[in-house]
């Protein structure tokens, strides 16, 4: 474990290439977000609407900065709270009325699309489909803007570590036991006196808050916001994709899945993207389907199972 951390800490110093650093930053930010998604996903609360939280976080923070000059560091917390409140209302309604499983996935999918449409509908403020650019201050650490990518790398790394720590903290808490019981059999858990709505709501709110923070990270890094890349069906499905392909039941699963997907995306884009527009995306879609058919437990999950299986055999 320590080796991994040390390696992650010195990686950008080893490469000295802006491009590689850029890819690493993208991996870290999206790992953070897909880890936050997996807080819920691994207990069987499958949300297909995390684009909503991502969009709320990013837009709240960036609009506050552009219009009122509020620092994105503060905006990150405000955006996170806004997303958490939204998740709280949505989650309470869903869990109170017993919307679970597929139905929960579909409701959240619709909500993610609704937020994207709302962002487009209020185009006077948000720029609509064209998106908008965050005001450029060059190098202003207090306003979360850096000219050197290396800062973004270390900040995203710290955030990812926080996300992994929160995962561990959830694991150690009563919440984990309650949610596992709920995931196994919701009715049985409720009969044993587990407060279903309370625990599910807790984990949803935490996940939404973290996802919104991830949205702010991403927005600050690319300094451009667009409803199609930050909200809506596409991104809402892309987040669970990463977590599942890595293995959403394992601490490092979402991170490994993200590294795999982002590298794959980049590789296909570099190798074929300029020559055949569209074909590279088709190859990407095909790769996703093949991976999901042949690695249903995710990359990390499958490897771990193999290793543990061998150990048990010996």
């Amino acid at each position, binding site marked *: 474990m320590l080796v991994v951390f040390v390696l992650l800490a010195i990686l950008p110093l080893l490469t000295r290439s802006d491009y590689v650093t850029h890819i690493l930053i993208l991996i870290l930010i999206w790992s953070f977000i897909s880890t936050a998604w997996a807080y819920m996903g691994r207990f069987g609360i499958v949300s297909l609407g995390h684009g909503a939280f991502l969009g709320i976080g990013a837009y709240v923070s960036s609009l506050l900065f552009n219009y009122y000059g509020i620092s994105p560091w503060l905006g990150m917390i405000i955006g996170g709270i806004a997303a958490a409140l939204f998740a709280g209302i949505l989650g309470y309604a869903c869990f109170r009325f017993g919307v679970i499983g597929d139905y929960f996935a579909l*409701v959240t999918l619709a909500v993610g699309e609704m937020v994207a449409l709302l962002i487009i509908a209020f185009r006077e403020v948000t720029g609509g489909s064209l998106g908008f650019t965050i005001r450029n201050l060059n190098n202003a650490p207090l306003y979360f803007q850096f000219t050197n990518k290396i800062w973004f790398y270390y900040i995203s790394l710290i955030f990812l570590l926080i996300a992994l720590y929160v995962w561990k903290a959830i694991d150690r808490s009563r919440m984990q036991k309650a949610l596992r019981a709920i995931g196994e059999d919701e009715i049985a858990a409720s009969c044993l006196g587990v407060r279903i709505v309370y625990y599910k709501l807790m984990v949803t709110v935490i996940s939404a808050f973290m996802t919104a923070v991830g949205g702010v990270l991403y927005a600050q890094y690319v300094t451009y916001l667009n409803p199609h890349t930050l909200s809506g069906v596409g991104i809402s499905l892309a987040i669970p994709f990463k977590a599942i392909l890595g293995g959403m039941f394992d601490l490092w699963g979402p991170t490994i899945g993200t590294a795999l997907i982002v590298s794959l995306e980049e590789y296909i884009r570099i190798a074929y993207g300029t020559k055949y527009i*569209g074909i590279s995306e*088709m190859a990407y879609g095909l790769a*996703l*389907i093949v991976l999901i*058919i042949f690695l*249903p437990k995710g990359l990390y999950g499958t490897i771990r199972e193999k290793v543990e299986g061998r150990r048990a055999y010996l």
Partner: protein
Amino acid sequence: MVEQVLNAAVNGLLLGGVLALLAFGLNLIFGVVKIIHMAYGQFVMLGFYLIYALTVQLHVPLLISCIIAVAAMGALGVVTQYLLIDPLLNAPRLNQLLALAGLIIIFENLAMVIWGADYRGIPIHFPILNFGSLYLRSSCLFAFFGALATLALLYVFLHKTYLGLAIRAVAQDAEVAQTMGINSRTIYFVTMGAGGALTGIVAAFFTPIYTVHPHFGSSFTIMAFIIVVLGGMGNLLGGFISAFIIGIVTSISAVLTTTEIADIIALLIFVLVMLVRPQGILGTRVA
């Protein structure tokens, strides 16, 4: 204003007929194969492009190219079942969903590669009918009655043939159906093939009404989902009625507000139905 709303209501009603057909296919697949077909609208998009390519680019007569498209989309449905859904039948629901989402990426970019991002339409001109202050596109009228006729045929197929009975049996309980000598895997292939052919038919009815572009399908997938949920998943009659409700509501709200707000209203209906009445307007709650 009143005239506009009235016009929108009538056009929404006509659109509802085609939407009912679209939702029927999605509902059938959900009811029988028990998967949520995320890429259903993209099937319609591909069918549309196929008709476009055959008539405009290869100068095949429209009717023949529609028939070819229906057959090709049926075949595509079977291929999808074989390559994608069959291997994932016992996988977690989420994996099935995401694999089909991967199919969306492939289909949309396939259309992008072959036909580009431009809007493509088939130049057939149906006259516009005029009843007082009411203006009707006869193409919509044609699509409406065509969709209703197709639905009637489907109803007869499901209720009067042995294969239809087998499909309904698998929809009710695949395991028990198997003990009655029905091969449910074969039925899955039949259903996916029929569902695919339906998208070809929907595409044929859409050709005089819309123009197609690579992202044409996604809004129809969402629309079909909303209808299916409103009517109750697996409930075909409920889906039929709610198609008209959604058709009318969206086209009236599109006239009164913007298209985005109209879509938001439709999605809001979806979410509220899910929360308050997940069994749909006609369904009965199963414990």
